[in-house]
């Protein structure tokens, strides 16, 4: 191993990236863990918003439908960075005012919660559109049949709508997950110590910019490629029993 690094002239980089304190590898991995934690939370929160949003857009009243249209349009037209700042300030302000009204002092809001809230609201707009499209792609007869049997709405959602839409929604959701992992980098700008910010700090204090940014890029790439494999499996599972589309349309 030593010899390998030496022949490539990478001894210096290997030392900088080592996991124990003189190296900064531990910091990078901690940053990655933070990033993934927020990405998971935001993706889940976004899915929840998306599910309700899609139901609201498809079956809601006129007012709800228009409000949701405004929500998805505005969120998708404004840069994530601006949204993150607005939502971050609004969120912290609201919570502080609430806690002061209830007689507590100012509250310190943890970076993870703020990050999940901010990215989740952004993800929710995209998820709404993905899930709405997926629900619309279900043959309407299936939902009608369930209704005709008198299935209550929640059971209908659990037994018919969600399983049937999974195969249509998975590609879009895979994309959203990738966006979520990459958008966590934006939280570096509000000072949350996720992978990108940790990398920048490490790079700035050792002046080895290429080493650290390339290492962080490799970490992100590993996450992306692994999620690609996982989502391919999920899609295969969601499509079970459906005829293969390979060779169709030629």
């Amino acid at each position, binding site marked *: 191993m030593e010899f390998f690094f030496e022949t490539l002239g990478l001894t210096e980089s290997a030392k900088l990236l080592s996991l124990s304190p003189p190296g900064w590898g531990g910091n990078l991995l901690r940053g990655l863990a933070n990033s993934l934690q927020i990405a998971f939370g935001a993706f889940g929160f976004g899915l929840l918003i998306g599910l309700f949003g899609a139901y609201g857009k498809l079956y809601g009243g006129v007012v709800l439908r228009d409000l949701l249209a405004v929500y998805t349009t505005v969120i998708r037209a404004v840069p994530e*960075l601006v949204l993150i700042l*607005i939502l971050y300030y609004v969120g912290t302000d609201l919570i502080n005012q609430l806690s002061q009204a209830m007689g507590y002092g100012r509250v310190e809001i943890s970076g993870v919660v703020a990050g999940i809230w901010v990215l989740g609201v952004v993800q929710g707009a995209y998820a709404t559109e993905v899930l709405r499209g997926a629900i619309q792609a279900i043959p309407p007869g299936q939902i009608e049949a369930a209704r005709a049997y008198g299935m209550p709405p929640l059971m209908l959602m659990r037994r018919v709508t969600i399983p049937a839409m999974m195969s249509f929604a998975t590609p879009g959701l895979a994309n959203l997950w990738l966006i979520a992992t*990459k958008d966590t*980098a934006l939280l570096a700008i509000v000072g949350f110590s996720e992978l*990108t910010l940790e990398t*920048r700090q490490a790079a700035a204090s050792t002046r080895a*910019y290429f080493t650290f940014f390339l290492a962080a890029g490799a970490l*992100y*790439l590993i996450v992306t490629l692994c999620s690609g494999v996982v989502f391919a499996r999920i899609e295969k599972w969601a499509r079970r029993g459906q005829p293969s589309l390979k060779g169709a349309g030629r």
Partner: protein
Amino acid sequence: MIPFRALMQPHRIVMLALLLGAVVWCAVALRWDWIPEYAPLAMEGLWRTIWILVVTCVLGFLLAIPLGLAQAVGPWYLSAPARVFCTVIRGTPLLLQIWLLYYGLGSLFPQIPWIRGSELWPYLRQAWPYAVLALTLSYAGYEGEVMRGAFSSVNKGQLEAANAFGMPRFTMFRRIWLPQAIRNVLPTLGGETILQLKATPLVATITVVELYAVSSRVRSDTFIVYEPLILLAVFYMIIAGIIALMFRRFENRVPG
């Protein structure tokens, strides 16, 4: 666009009235006295945002054509690097790419004497070349993937017909293959261009003063938080709307 009749439903009238009320409340209750002072800077920032957007989209698209072509029909020694490039660009955050180029190259260049002595050095000391480079590469990476699909989805018969007429390969590409590929992906291109607009504020982190940087400066100078951000969001929505309208006009002009 929404037709006028559709806006005149009772609930929409109420919602528009509420929106108008909110706008009036914002205009009256919030602080806008900083606007005259920062207006020239904001105009400069707006202009910079727009030209960065236009330049990076055009350059990125020109780069995306060979990338897409290499992936769609190229031999393996061209298609493999193109695929790796697209995967790497699409798999890492843009912010990281911008910082890698700016801090990495920016710390590497001063150590190389002939770069310091060259004509380009005054430009390389500024931040915007790195911003333009990073955004161009990013757009090229995403668009290369889109163009790959576009090139391989053009009807084979059309290319065979051109071949049968004895059309030179480049003429065939220019007259038949490329126009049809672009026509097929125009809606996607519109969406990607709006995504590119939403990526431009990231260059503010490497000291390029564009629209977003101006709002940050207002915030740090005057401690006014919400007003500049709200105005900024409105500006971006207007630009995104204009881009969407432009692409819709393009699509309508192109015969389906």
